[in-house]
């Protein structure tokens, strides 16, 4: 194994990941709820693993991990549990005036299909490579 190559690659990646974590292009839902001042009346985007929690006549509740936010607007064909992307303006009462929404119908089916794809890839990899004491070796007949 090439330890220097692995360390160089992983160190570079760690640097990129830390930089990305501290300079995200959009705020998290929890940040909008806990420190909303800089974002009031500003356009916002909500799309990281965001689901519809509950639908009401005047709008719907969004959930992102433990955080919840109310969106004012038509939920359209969205149902509770759907993954959504929402754009809008953050209002002073920390609700969102919705401008546009995309509903990721079929997201769970896509996850299931992806799991099948990952399994298939694993089978191909196991069949065409072997683990030796010096590292991974590509089988010549592959």
């Amino acid at each position, binding site marked *: *194994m090439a330890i220097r*190559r692995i360390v*160089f690659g992983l160190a570079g*990646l760690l640097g*990129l990941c830390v930089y990305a974590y501290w300079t995200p292009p959009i705020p998290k839902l929890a940040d909008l709820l806990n420190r909303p001042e800089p974002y009031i009346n500003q356009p916002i985007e909500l799309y990281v693993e965001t689901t519809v929690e509950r639908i009401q006549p005047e709008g719907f509740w969004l959930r992102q991990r433990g955080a919840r936010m109310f969106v004012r607007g038509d939920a359209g064909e969205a149902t509770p549990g759907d993954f959504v992307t929402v754009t809008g303006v953050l209002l002073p009462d920390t609700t969102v005036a919705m401008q546009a929404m995309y509903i990721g119908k079929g997201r769970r089916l896509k996850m299931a299909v992806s799991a*099948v794809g990952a399994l298939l890839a694993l089978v191909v990899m196991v069949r065409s490579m072997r683990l030796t004491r010096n590292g991974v070796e590509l089988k010549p007949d592959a």
Partner: protein
Amino acid sequence: MPDLLTHVATGYLVRSAAPKKLHPGILILGVILPDIVTRPIYIVWPDAYWFVKPLHTPLGLVLLSLAVSGLFVPRDRQRALINLLAGSGLHLALDLLQKHLVGGYALLFPFTWKSWEIGLIWPEQTLWLLPIWMTLCGLVFWRKKRGQRKAIRPESRVSCHISESQS
């Protein structure tokens, strides 16, 4: 991003059409690499979304491919790196065909978060195209197997003649 089965299918089709220099196992690993190192993590921990995001960018994938290729024996290291880069590149190219309401692909990260995409299909619509990819893969697989059978047949006749003459 399209589902992984679509990515694996495109990897298989490209491998079938491309020169033998492309290795099936490591090319497929490259094809699924950008998703398997990001999606399971941020599905379980959404807070880690921005932390793992660089692993789905060109520079991040070059570094990741470099690190993974280091696990291979010296003889196969360079080939592994080329295949991983080819597979990851194919993955990104396929992802770029999609459109999103917001948030495309930050191709120039860490220099800018500005994102790009060609915008032909919505992410979930790739599922509708899956039967087409699967049929194509089935046809290629069937043609390959038929070609192998044809190639084996004349040799088996020769070996029969030899064994008959020896007896």
